[in-house]
């Protein structure tokens, strides 16, 4: 139990990662797939951010008063990753809207049928 607690952030990361991936694979609804994808990506944010936090550390402000501060690098990286994630999800949703307009469905199985007909 203590080992689980010690690495809790990693357990959560793995849970989100696997769960998100499972949703992407298992669900036929294109919106749900995107939700899964989003969860999947979020797990990575956690993977980066959690080791960067130091207990008792402050924001990384260079001043003599503070000696212990968190690593700023993961925040910068993950800010970028979040932006990428937002763009991906936005584009994915836009595609789903267009797919719904031209096919009338967003279920993967129905789409496969429709495509093989044409």
């Amino acid at each position, binding site marked *: 139990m203590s080992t689980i607690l010690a690495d809790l952030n990693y357990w959560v990361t793995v849970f989100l990662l696997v769960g998100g991936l499972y949703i992407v694979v298992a669900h036929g609804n294109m919106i749900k797939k995107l939700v899964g994808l989003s969860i999947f990506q979020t797990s990575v944010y956690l993977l980066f951010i959690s080791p960067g936090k130091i207990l008792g550390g402050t*924001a990384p*402000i260079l001043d003599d008063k503070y000696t212990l501060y968190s690593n700023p690098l993961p925040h910068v990286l993950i*800010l970028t990753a979040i*932006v990428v994630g937002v763009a991906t999800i*936005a584009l994915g*949703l*836009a595609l789903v*809207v267009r797919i719904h307009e031209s096919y009338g469905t967003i279920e993967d199985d129905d789409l496969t049928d429709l495509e093989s007909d044409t």
Partner: protein
Amino acid sequence: MMRDTIILRVVVKLLLPAILIFALYVQFHGDYGPGGGFQAGVAAAAAIILYGMIFGIPAAKQVVPPSVVFVMIPLGVLIYAGTGVAGLLLGDNFLDYSPLGSKPVYGQHLGILIVEFGVLVTVSSTMLAIFYAFGGRADEADAAEEARKDGEGGS
């Protein structure tokens, strides 16, 4: 939409300036503490989006027309990359802002302000563009639906 809810309309009108001011605070405080163009851009866009949700997207589009939004997105990238190129043209590496000011520190200060402004422009307009694209589509779809119903009723 919630166009008829008087409380919301009033509260939103009161909140809007505060949100925008806060966005600007985040923007300019980004130089000294947590904050910066990304956060400020989203906050600023949130103000317009909130306005659009309460007063309708057409009203929001009157405030910030889509044509402006579409120019703002690339403009922000241009400001960012242009600042970098300015450093390059003044003899240092790309994205090195030192030569922009009389002293390297001033130059870097100025450079980061301009770059963050570019980020603000792009992020806020991108958020708005996404909002217009999805939200606007629902309005158009509603309008089309109503038109179809009207057509059926008439015949």
